[in-house]
């Protein structure tokens, strides 16, 4: 009797360990926007936007037993449930076909609701946790958390950018873009990129776009020289939330591309005598010799 009790005590921790086996990882890709682990404001609001979950489970389900997965979501504060009653799912439970499984058609708005995101138009990013529960035989008894991952509802709209200046170039405009000032509804987000649009001010013609680029200079290329353009800029978060369009700059001299000559061309145009090329003068061939001498000096030191 004592031996049996001892054996039972020894086995209990093993059973407990099996219950809390480290969950696998899950990621979700929102199909309309295409960045894994992110949803933007429009996708959060939309009732049709769906995501694809890629689940790596810590258990290998048995199809013939009717094993199922339940997809859940939770706030980062509470995290995924590991004991007690299995939480309600985002959608209907799915048949578990393997330890690695791709599950399509998970509604983004349902993910937001389940994870208690609140308003999809708030000016904050909301990180949540994705949870995958394993239901043996499809029953809600003996369930396990078998996979989890992180997901961010990137709801912040980048502030409206400002154009600090435009420098004309040959068939291009170099636009200096600065981040806008945050407001109650527009907050700074990470990984904001900027896109500029250059539109011919007269005579029609398709607008050209430059970027996306980080804050600083964004090039609008492929423009027509001597044509004045109007320039605008727009910021975009990593998940695709677009800011309001900046004030219009131009048309003026600085937004008119011209065939500018660079320094060498101006120098030669003015009659500069330098010929260029490595054979400049009779001594040009000595350049490699200088390098060789340096290398020999280093080699000799090492030996």
């Amino acid at each position: 009797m004592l031996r049996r009790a001892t054996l039972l005590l020894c086995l209990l921790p093993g059973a407990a360990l099996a219950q809390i086996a480290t969950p696998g990882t899950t990621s979700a890709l929102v199909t309309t926007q295409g960045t894994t682990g992110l949803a933007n404001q429009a996708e959060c609001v939309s009732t049709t936007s769906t995501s694809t979950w890629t689940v790596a489970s810590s258990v290998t389900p048995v199809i013939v037993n009717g094993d199922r997965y339940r997809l859940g979501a939770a706030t980062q504060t509470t995290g995924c449930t590991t004991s007690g009653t299995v939480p309600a799912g985002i959608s209907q439970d799915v048949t578990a076909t393997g330890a690695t499984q791709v599950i399509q058609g998970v509604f983004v708005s349902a993910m937001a609701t389940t994870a208690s995101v609140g308003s999809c138009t708030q000016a904050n990013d909301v990180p949540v946790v994705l949870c995958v529960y394993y239901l043996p035989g499809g029953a809600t008894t003996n369930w396990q958390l078998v996979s989890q991952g992180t997901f961010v509802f990137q709801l912040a709209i980048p502030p409206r950018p400002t154009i600090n200046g435009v420098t004309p170039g040959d068939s291009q405009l170099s636009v200096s873009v600065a981040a806008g000032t945050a407001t109650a509804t527009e907050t700074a987000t990470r990984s904001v990129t900027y896109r500029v649009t250059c539109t011919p001010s007269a005579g029609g013609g398709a607008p050209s776009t430059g970027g996306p680029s980080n804050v600083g200079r964004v090039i609008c290329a492929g423009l027509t020289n001597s044509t004045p353009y109007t320039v605008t800029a727009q910021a975009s978060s990593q998940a695709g939330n677009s800011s309001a369009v900046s004030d219009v700059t131009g048309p003026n001299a600085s937004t008119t591309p011209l065939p500018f000559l660079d320094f060498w061309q101006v120098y030669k145009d003015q009659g500069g005598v330098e010929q260029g090329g490595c054979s400049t003068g009779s001594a040009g061939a000595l350049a490699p010799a200088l390098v060789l001498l340096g290398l020999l000096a280093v080699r000799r030191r090492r030996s």
Partner: protein
Amino acid sequence: MKKALFALALVLALPAAAQSPVVVSKESPRWGSFQVSVSPFSPNIDSEFTNAASPPYATAFGTSRPLMVQGIFSKSVWITEVGTLDVGFGAGYWQVSGQGQFTDSSGVVQRGGSTSLMIIPLQIAVAYRFDWFYERFDVPLAPYFRGALVDYVWNTSGQGGVSSWTSATGTTYRGNGATFGLSGTLGLALVLDAFDTGMSRQMDYDLGINRSMLFFDFTKSSVNDFGSQKSWQLAPSYWAWSAGLLFVY
């Protein structure tokens, strides 16, 4: 018991001794030197255009003097109490950026686009440094002079990369090349070892650095392929000062 305590003390003291090696007073053999320096630099390219209203270099890049960074590795070929004769190889880097220009049909000049000039100065230098004041009288000053054969490898670029210009006859000139010249330098070095002899000996023991010097010098040079009529002048028009650190090892 006393023997055991002595042995224990010896064992405890050994690692400490290993961490704090005895610094020998004898100096390590000298091989050569290495120096790094910075110098405000502006080539005198506009010397060809003395009467021009808008000379090309000043128009594109202005009158600023960006810093040129240089380093010289030298081998000491003659070491005496009076001084040291070094022969070395040096290389550096310098770049200036500016804007291009466009002149319309009415003669109005507008600025725009981007353009730059980059120079990699190479040199073979022979220098003599008077160590006598420090070695003999402990005066921490070492005057020196240096002569060098220099080769400035240069590259001009515009919006689309390396510049090129096509003449009326159809000949294309690419905006890169190499230009040779000569330079002479006069300078004075402050021997830093004089201010902390203990650290000086430690640096010699740990790194083999015999002397550390802070120097300041003036250089006059001419870099135009030795007066070639087909070369521009890449040397400054002035005595260019430079400052840096020199390590004798």
